[in-house]
């Protein structure tokens, strides 16, 4: 039982057109391959010779670009979920590190209690609420992304672009928060 060059070529075309994380793509292509071998077996049982059975299997599966296109929302959702989970996982520890570093430096200087670490340098009173706002947006967008890409997806309004958009928003908001905190510390 051979894969047949037709089947390999079809799978290569799908692979080339699939976006997203490599591991998710490999999993999808492996599933398509095993399904296509099942299809070729079925056509062989129906009396076709090997090469014709493989060709019939690729015809039966349809246009590889259309199949890849249909996987696009799935891969985009998975990617968005990865980004959001990374943000949720890395945000709090990094925040704690910042706070810890600030507290430690102030304890070392011994002139202010740790919660006063930002001091009152010029410009910072405006920057602090901005950082807070960015952090709130980040947290909500990241949580919404995880919700929209997981099992809660069917309870949310069906907008395929929602997850990638919120992931992009939470990423941008996280960067804005970091920049603001940098500006705060530098000022």
């Amino acid at each position, binding site marked *: 039982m051979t894969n047949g060059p037709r089947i390999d070529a079809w799978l290569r075309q799908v692979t080339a057109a699939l976006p997203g994380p490599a591991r998710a793509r490999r999993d999808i292509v492996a599933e398509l391959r*095993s*399904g296509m071998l099942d299809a070729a077996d079925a056509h062989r049982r129906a009396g076709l010779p090997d090469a014709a059975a493989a060709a019939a299997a690729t015809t039966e599966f349809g246009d590889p670009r259309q199949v890849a296109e249909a*996987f696009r929302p*799935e891969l985009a959702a998975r990617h968005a979920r990865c980004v959001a989970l990374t943000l949720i996982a890395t945000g709090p520890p990094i925040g704690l590190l910042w706070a810890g570093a600030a507290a430690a430096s102030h304890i070392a200087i011994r002139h202010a209690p740790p919660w006063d670490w930002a001091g009152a340098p010029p410009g910072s009173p405006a920057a602090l609420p901005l950082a807070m706002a960015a952090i709130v947006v980040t947290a909500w967008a990241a949580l919404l992304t995880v919700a929209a890409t*997981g099992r809660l997806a*069917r309870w949310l309004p069906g907008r395929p672009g929602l997850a990638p958009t919120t992931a992009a928003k939470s990423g941008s908001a996280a960067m804005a928060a970091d920049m603001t905190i940098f500006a705060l510390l530098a000022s």
Partner: protein
Amino acid sequence: MRAETLKGHLDGLLLASLDAGPRHGYAIMEALRAGSGGQFDLPTGTIYPALRRLERAGLVHGTWAEDGRRRRVYELTAAGRRALTAERGTWRDFSAAVTALLEPAPRPVTP
């Protein structure tokens, strides 16, 4: 039957094909084809993305199994079973209404 005609019902049909027990992608396709008397002949490649979508929604659960060939086998989750029941109810109401409107009224029987 054209793929477009099927579009809104594919999810329900996929769930229904798993009602009797777990199946892999190609077996689901064969069940759809056989169960519809060959009427549903959509491109086989399109049911795999649909299965992944149902999996992400928590309605089916897919696992790799080895039985001569490595295949991804899907089974209904509890939520999938509930969705199938709901889908069946919706379909009964809908098809009864469409039948009532589309079918010609029975003619009075002439004595």
